[in-house]
């Protein structure tokens, strides 16, 4: 297990991959259906939204901030897109994404101005917008629900298509986004700035990094992705009410933390968070395969989050102790 806790990016991802394969193998042993084509497709479909959102908040969390408003944004976006489609039967899937994405950007701007502009603590700000946005859905939805018949056929078709019967389109899109964000985080100045800002905020100011701009844009990106994820929600469930995706923000944060983004910022990769999302989903699938009641899902999510944060803490204190030991050795 020790290698699991190595801070090196590749090491962390490789060990996560091993754990993932192990978890899939165990689950498959208990319930062979889990490793069939159908089982794989189900797993990937179920993971797509969380994976997408986890990639979306990755830059924010790398900068030592957080965005808890994403699940509410997914709910609002899903409801608003369904509502718009119901009122405009000629809507195509492209317009659905435009509506969802735009709503997300607006919420992202609000978060960004409060956190980056006013320098308010992101945990409190986005906890506030979590309730504001969810409250917004309750008010505008007025308890109206929508079902498959009100949604564009072209949209639902994307949701149910899978390449080779294995790779669902939504998950494939999440993989594309992962590749783009991974490249951005590794090979652009803006991406590297995210790590520097999260690693040592005062030093980032001292070397003249554009802290406001990076933080602000990261919130807009996260909001945009959450808006898009709302459309994914419709693709997967083909129905929506005002409680859609309620309370799922912590599953996303759990996936990101398990995937190697420390809450202290400065570390983590897009590939890691996708593996983290898969792992969370696999463990839940495994528990279902073991016959554990679905009501346990929320409790399991919470447990996973605590385990992940604890692992992260052990990591941090170990490297701190090693550093101190080294210093003492140098002085003597």
């Amino acid at each position, binding site marked *: 297990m020790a290698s699991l806790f190595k*801070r*090196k990016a590749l090491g962390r991802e490789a060990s996560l991959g091993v754990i993932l394969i192990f978890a899939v193998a165990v689950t498959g042993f208990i319930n062979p259906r889990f490793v069939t084509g159908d089982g794989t497709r189900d797993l990937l479909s179920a993971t797509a939204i969380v994976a997408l959102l986890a990639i979306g908040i990755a830059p924010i969390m790398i900068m030592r901030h957080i965005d808890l408003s994403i699940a509410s944004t997914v709910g609002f976006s899903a409801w608003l897109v369904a509502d718009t489609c119901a009122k405009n039967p000629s809507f195509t899937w492209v317009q659905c994404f435009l509506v969802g994405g735009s709503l997300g950007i607006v919420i992202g701007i609000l978060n960004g101005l409060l956190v980056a502009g006013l320098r308010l603590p992101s945990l409190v700000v986005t906890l506030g917008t979590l309730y504001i946005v969810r409250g917004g859905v309750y008010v505008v939805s007025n308890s109206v629900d929508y079902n498959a018949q009100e949604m564009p056929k072209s949209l639902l078709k994307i949701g149910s298509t899978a390449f080779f019967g294995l790779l669902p389109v939504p998950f494939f899109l999440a993989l594309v986004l992962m590749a783009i964000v991974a*490249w951005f985080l*590794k*090979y*652009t*100045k803006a991406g*590297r*700035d995210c*790590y*520097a800002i*999260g*690693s*040592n905020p*005062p*030093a*980032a*100011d*001292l*070397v*003249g*990094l554009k802290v406001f701009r990076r933080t602000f844009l990261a919130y807009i990106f996260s909001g945009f992705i959450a808006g898009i994820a709302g459309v994914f929600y419709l693709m997967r469930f083909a129905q929506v009410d005002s409680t859609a995706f309620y309370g799922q923000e912590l599953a996303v944060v759990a996936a990101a933390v398990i995937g190697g983004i420390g809450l202290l*910022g*400065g*570390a983590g990769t897009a590939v890691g968070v996708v593996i983290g999302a898969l792992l969370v989903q696999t463990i839940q699938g495994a528990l279902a395969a073991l016959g554990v009641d679905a009501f346990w899902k929320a409790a399991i999510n919470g447990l996973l989050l605590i385990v992940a944060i604890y692992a992260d803490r052990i990591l941090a204190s170990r*490297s701190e102790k*090693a*550093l*101190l030991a*080294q*210093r*003492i050795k*140098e*002085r*003597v």
Partner: protein
Amino acid sequence: MANKGDLLLEMKDVKKRFGGAVALRGTSLSVRAGEIHALLGENGAGKSTMLKILAGVHVHDGGEITLGGSAFISGSPQASIDQGIAVIYQEPSLFLDLSLAENVFVGRQPKKGIAIDWKEAEAQASKLFKELGVELDPKRQARGLSIADQQVVEIAKALSMNANIILMDEPTAALSASEVERLMTVMRNLRAANKAVIFVSHRLDEVFAISDHITVMRDGATVSEKKIAQTDLQTVIKEMVGRELTELFPKTDHPIGDVVLEVENLTNAAYFRNVSFTVRKGEIVALAGLVGSGRSEIARSIFGIDSYDEGSVKINHKPLKKNSPIAAMDVKIALVPEDRRQQGLFMVAGVNRNISMESFSRLTGRFFINFKKERALTNEWRENLSIKYADQSDPVDRLSGGNQQKTVLAKWLATNPDLLIVDEPTRGIDVGTKAEVHRLIDKAAGEGKAVLMISSELPEVLGMADRIIVMREGRQVTELSRKEATQENVIAAATTGKKGI
């Protein structure tokens, strides 16, 4: 590229005030290419303020600064970087999660097309490390790097920005002897490359080993600027100290009684080793030395905030449980910590609540706090210490620094301690209040309390203490009686580790 001997930096009569406090009252400094220039002075002489002005953190109020003939553009760290000034702070400010190559080039990564060219960044960083004579792996993460290696990375960063003036604030404070040697080699290489190196240090032996010029500052002004050949250790120490002992310290003689505190072979591997001393009733013992010499950590270990690895602490001949402030308070130890805002007070709570904090047991009725008693206690100490406030329940945040310090003292004196430990009791308070604090400490000793005082201010140490224990890098260098101690021998012991000069 500058030629050797070119005037790179000239500061003339530079002034800086912070509110009412004058930090620089007229500092001058001229530094040439290919020179290592030491900046010396006691704590509070204004060295850090000067560095921060050049770093673009502060803006000077008066005087002239020119860089290679053109006026210095002040007020932003970025502008200072652009003008070829690099500052290496005492605590390096690296991004610990990032690789060394990335730390060198943060914000200025070399690009190929639209993507960062990591190979190029690593190759360039590697080349810079080689030039500095320290082979570090540019792919390595900065976390876990020793302070010495972190400084090398900072210097490489400075070179990659084409800095020609490199400022170092106490670069050797946290280094071991071999690391100091390596840093000196790097500094000599920089000199050979016709850079100007300005460094602040309290270690005078090192200063004389490496620098070409020495500028001494005192009370915010330049006292002397000399070539190394024109001066010597004793002259420099005299120039640093300068002032005469004033009558600010009304120390009176008290009968000295039985031993109260006995510290034996106390060791905490990270901070101090084999420290042994005693403090008696009515006696004031000072721990002198530089910031970071382990003095505050000793106080913390005695009071039980930190643990210790070896040794023992006895109070009134009885062993004291380690790592338990409650046990320490039970045997009547009081600790007035060095940072009153962070460690000494509850800033938003009232003066009364702060003063009564450690005396609750005497103020409670059967179940509840008796506020009448609390008021009486606060009034008593307000009079004893002449603390100035409008209302008892005023948050201490609103009090001046001096009155805050008196409040912390009142809190602990109210517990009627046998041993009073005061850590930097007069830091950041004005001269008048200083004298009052000294009078109070003297009075406490007169009442038969044992007093252990930690202070970085020499006049305070010399004026107040019956005995002085000089610390350097976690070790006891020497112990001087009131009679033996002079400014010169205390400074010499604290900075060079030698017992006499």
